[in-house]
């Protein structure tokens, strides 16, 4: 085991995969000259000359050319700078990358990774704070993953690069410097499989990315009040591991879903819909969702604090499904 930050863990993943496969390369804005705005590409360009490309501010060309490169024999990793800017190349993602294989009857594979730093950073405001998986839940053909620890950051990124299909890799901006244990031996974190981070009998919490950590914090507080939650770290947001969620929910009879993105139309909506369908007879309370309130992310600290999902919101939702407190 080594202690690595998220940035270092993703950097290791990049190095290992670029060493393993000469067709892997990475492109994006401001990644080579300064090693990425979060230091996540530090030293990579020197190690792999010609395979770490600074691009112009041209997101449609970044994702579109990544598709073209993938179709013709390379394995591109495209960095979006901020997940918020997926909007700018949304057509390339949803109408081209996601549909190419299907529309052309499976003529080519599309081994392509989109790295998308997401999430709330205090003061970054409406256009630099979003978690955007809710924009993409409705798109068949895309895979979405998001790590919650340096180990999963490494393992998921390696899997994403080895995948023969388009994977969006959401990495939370606030987590980059955070450290944690990472196995020294090579490993992959499988796509499509959730992990139970904490066992508990009272309520199932489904979370991913930074919200796993907030859920773990909530769990500690709740435990003091005698409430034992089970925490499922989704890791893959699409297609998510319904079985693990349903198995847990059938046991606890209660489910809370927590993500940082806006609640309305977020990934949690699809999860809740499927869980109520598959665990209907086991549910003792409605499924609740915790996330950003239904507005853009505001700048001012008290406003941000009010709209962003916090540990306390998770605790409250858990108590609510346990009928411990009034609404």
């Amino acid at each position: 085991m080594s202690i690595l930050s998220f940035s270092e863990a993703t950097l290791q993943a990049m190095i290992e995969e670029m060493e393993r496969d000469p067709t892997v390369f990475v492109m994006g804005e401001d990644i080579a000259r300064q090693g990425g705005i979060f230091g996540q590409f530090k030293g990579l360009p020197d190690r792999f000359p010609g395979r770490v490309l600074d691009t112009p501010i041209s997101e449609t060309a970044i994702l579109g050319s990544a598709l073209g490169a993938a179709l013709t024999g390379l394995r591109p990793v495209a960095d979006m700078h901020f997940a918020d800017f997926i909007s700018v190349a949304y057509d390339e993602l949803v109408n081209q990358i996601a549909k190419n294989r299907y529309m052309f009857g499976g003529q080519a594979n599309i081994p392509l990774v989109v790295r998308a730093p997401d999430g709330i950073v205090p003061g970054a405001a409406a256009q630099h704070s979003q978690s955007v998986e809710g924009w993409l839940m409705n798109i068949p053909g895309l895979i979405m993953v998001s790590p919650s620890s340096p180990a999963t950051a490494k393992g998921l990124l390696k899997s994403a690069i080895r995948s023969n299909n388009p994977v969006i890799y959401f990495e939370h901006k606030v987590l980059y410097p955070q450290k944690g244990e990472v196995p020294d031996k090579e490993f992959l974190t499988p796509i499509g499989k959730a992990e139970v981070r904490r066992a508990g009998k009272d309520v199932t919490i489904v979370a991913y990315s930074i919200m796993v950590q907030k859920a773990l914090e909530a769990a500690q507080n709740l435990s003091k009040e005698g409430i034992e939650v089970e925490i499922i770290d989704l890791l893959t947001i699409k297609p998510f591991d319904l079985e693990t969620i349903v198995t847990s929910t059938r046991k606890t009879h209660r489910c809370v879903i927590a993500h940082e993105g806006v609640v309305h139309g977020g990934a949690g909506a699809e999860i809740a819909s499927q869980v109520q369908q598959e665990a209907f007879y086991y549910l003792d309370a409605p499924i609740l969702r915790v996330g950003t309130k239904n507005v853009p992310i505001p700048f001012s600290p008290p406003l941000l604090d009010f709209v962003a999902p916090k540990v306390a919101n998770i605790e409250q939702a858990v108590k609510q499904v346990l009928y411990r407190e009034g609404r």
Partner: protein
Amino acid sequence: MGVRIKEFPNVFLELPSKGKKDLLRTMIRIRSFETRVEELFLAKRIPGFVHLYIGEEGIATGIMANLRKTDWITSTHRGHGHAIAKGAQMNRMMAELYGKRSGYCKGKGGSMHIADFSVGMLGANGVVGGGFSIAVGAGMTAWMKKTDQVAVCFFGDGASNRGTFHEALNMAAIWKLPVLFVNENNQYASTTPVSYGVSASRISDRAVGYGIDGYTIDGNNVVEVYNVAHTLIDRLRAGKGPILLECRTYRVKGHYVGDPEKYRTKEEVKKQIEENDPIQRYTSYLIEQSFLKPEEIDALWKEAKEEVEAAVRYAEEEPYPAPEEALEDLFGPEQEVWV
């Protein structure tokens, strides 16, 4: 038509006469295929939308005669001609237009998404301007793998107003990628005349914004297209960077089969058909220069007709995909990374 660039005198490169014949054959094959597709669409044998390339065959033909099977192209919604010229088979194309299982896309794509990746035809595209950056990506592959492959991006006059044009040309230019951007300026984007929608007087002028070369040529003169493309594609293979080539042509058919065409006069179209048909123009040239005899030309038409009819029979007879096949082909096979 078109503005002649001095750099490209209109001389026929010394092709063996087979090459000359091949150019004509390709144009005739495209025309024959599409004429039949139009009939089949009107007879409701082919569903969906169909956009015909009739009258624009000189461009695909002249360009593609300079490409290898390992080169790549990206196409538009008007892709039949590009596919045939790049080497796709008519029968599997026709089967696709019918929605049959043995079509190139297993019936999932249809006319607007015709593609044959095995010959480097990376697909027609329902999103106007969707192909620019895909071609850039193919150019990146050649660049990074240090091969001398090239990518050709076909696009319309209307498409030149998409932001994707700008981003792709700039990116190709800064990395000197081997991409030829071939504008098929057929005077209209659906109902919109190029003089209204495109602010530049020549689309090739837009090359200036990327520090690359831009040319405007007569796209209905297959000789000119062939010659210019020959020179330019050599430059691409030599690593000299991307080029913008505007080929002036004219869409003699409606934007799609069924277009009421209220945006232009019948006379305008008639004049173009009579005076500016690329096949007629090339045929006259070949006969005048005694390169081919009328019987040889007739034989080409006959051959093409037979090929098309065989394709139609094939398409008619082949089975539809089974309904559940609709759930296949979304994802490619995975080995180790999926649970």
